[in-house]
């Protein structure tokens, strides 16, 4: 069997600066098979974007990998020289960022930026590059694609900017696409179109997708498997239907309960998760969710739970589940 397109194991990342070091990710493991769409769900600050940036090796200075490995098609990319990594970015793996306004250049027309991405392909003439850019823009549903090439980012609405960013990532047909909250700013019909587009892309060119989102509806619509991240740790992972339909970890359950689209009868008193995310400069010794968990036991505070398998490809890190299994 071919190695997974992406295989992350035991990845820990620390941010150090003027304040106490922050342990942003702790022993994170996940894998993405060829042609698979894997979702990463978690609240802001849970480390979703840090994980994505670590895979692209675009972490900010001050961030360091303290343990673990990231393998892309079997190669350990954390050990790769920067020159090789640069070749991999764009063609091997591409990323669409959360905020297109800061990801793209505001002072260059979008057509120029899109054509520049193809600079490594000397066989393409200027006209070819232009045609490819137009095709990519049409593909993501931009009206008047030809005329849009000369326009600047500020002339587009939020949804359109994101579609331009996606079009740019598609230009080189990457084998792994990392999509970081790309539908957050989109409306439902556009979101549905973009998700369809990602699925088509996967089916057509076999591109694997790491789909990062806090939108549970989007995760449900597109992901084969889902990884739940809380405060820098994977607390539950499994097939999407299991995570959304038969979640085992108390955090996953609480998160699903908060989703207003799951609440049938209209209410103006929506459920919330009481408490705050723990301070990651001094993560708790026990379970990372213990302080907010409605069912926490005393050992949840003192001992870190181990990962236990509760079904085919479905794992949970929780003392309560261990108890149930015994």
């Amino acid at each position, binding site marked *: 069997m071919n190695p997974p397109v992406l295989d992350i194991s035991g990845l820990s990342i620390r941010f150090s600066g003027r304040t106490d070091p922050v342990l942003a990710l702790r022993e994170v493991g996940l894998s993405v098979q060829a042609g698979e769409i894997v979702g990463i769900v978690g609240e802001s600050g849970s480390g979703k974007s840090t994980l994505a940036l670590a895979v692209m090796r675009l972490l900010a200075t001050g961030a360091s990998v303290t343990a673990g490995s990231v393998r892309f098609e079997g190669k350990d990319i954390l050990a790769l020289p920067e020159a090789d990594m640069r070749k991999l970015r764009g063609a091997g793996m591409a990323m669409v960022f959360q905020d297109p306004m800061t990801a793209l250049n505001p002072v260059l027309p979008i057509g120029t930026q899109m054509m520049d991405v193809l600079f490594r392909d000397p066989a393409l003439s200027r006209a070819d590059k232009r045609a490819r850019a137009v095709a990519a823009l049409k593909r993501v549903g931009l009206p008047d694609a030809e005329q849009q090439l000369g326009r600047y980012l500020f002339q587009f609405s939020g949804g359109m900017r994101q579609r331009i960013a996606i079009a740019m990532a598609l230009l080189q047909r990457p084998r792994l696409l990392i999509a970081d909250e790309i539908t957050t700013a989109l*409306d439902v019909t556009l979101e549905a179109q973009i998700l369809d587009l990602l699925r088509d892309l996967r089916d057509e060119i076999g591109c694997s997708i790491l789909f990062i989102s806090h*939108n549970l509806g989007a995760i449900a619509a597109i992901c084969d498997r889902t990884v739940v991240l809380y405060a820098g740790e994977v607390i539950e992972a499994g097939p999407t239907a299991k995570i959304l339909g038969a979640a085992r970890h108390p955090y996953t359950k609480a998160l699903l309960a908060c989703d207003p689209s799951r609440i049938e009868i209209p209410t103006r008193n929506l459920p919330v998760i009481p408490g705050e995310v723990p301070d990651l400069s001094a993560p708790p010794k026990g379970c990372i969710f213990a302080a907010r968990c409605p069912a926490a036991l005393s050992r949840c505070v003192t001992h870190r739970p181990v990962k236990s398998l509760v079904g085919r490809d479905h794992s949970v890190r929780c003392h309560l589940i261990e108890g149930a299994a015994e």
Partner: protein
Amino acid sequence: MTLLSVRDLTVSYPVRGPLAGWWTGQKRFVDVVCGISLDLAEGTTLAIAGESGSGKSTFARALMGLTPFRSGSLIFDGKAPFPARGRPARAYLHQVSMMFQDPVASLSPRRTIGALITEPFRIHRPDLRNLEAEAKRLLVLVGLPADFAQRYPHQISGGQARRVGLARAVALNPRLVIADEPTAGLDVSVQGEILNLMARLQAEQSVAFLMITHNLAVVRHMSDRTAIMYMGRIVEEGPTDRVFASPAHPYAAALIAAEPSSLPGHHRHSAALKGEVSSPLHRPDGCAFHPRCPAARPLCSATAPLPQVSASGALVSCHFPLQRTPDQ
């Protein structure tokens, strides 16, 4: 009682470029908001939903006087606050406030939270001396610790910034708050906190909300009435439960059918809506939605439909509104 009444409000932006108007000698305009009419009752919530670029935010800005409107009228509490030219009356801005879309960008990074939330008092209530007490009152009101007054915007989280935005919006006890995407980009649990807070303030102070959002789940829970916008026009407006139960405009129906859900077994009907949003520069003749409409007939591309009352009691701008069949 009707608090806000808008009639035929149109906002246009001039088309720029080297050749704009060169041939005809006339300035060309793009209608971003074209002819919106709606009423908002005191102490209630009206949600405006629609795709990006449909003119939701422009409409909100026009109501605040931040973007001039080309034609139309606005009556607030029986008075017309907008003069023929220039800014709206100060008394109007005292009673109407806005929560901006990007809470962090709307807070000046160089000022403390305390200074930011008491700014409305400096403008509208210069007689007020004890601003510190007001800052404390507002922070407690939105569920933030009182010592946040000394912090700067970069020291707070996105959810906390929304709370600050809400505190600033309700500082002067306004009668209407225009909330532009109040929960966009927030986690579901934090989103619930902000929405619960807004509902509580409405119950306590009977403030009306005009909520702009593209999150239909939020609309369904929070609003009394719902208006669906498409290309600058309201295509359907009515009581929220009825609009959601039996949308009459094909676009409203497609939008509601496309609402994502994380419930297993839920299949959204994304296939219902194909095609691209038309460019406002080349607005289709007749009904602006007809190029994408699954039920379009020749009349739709010839004549723009006028609003009519649907079977469910909503106002619908469609020649052939959907009829709800009993088996659905």
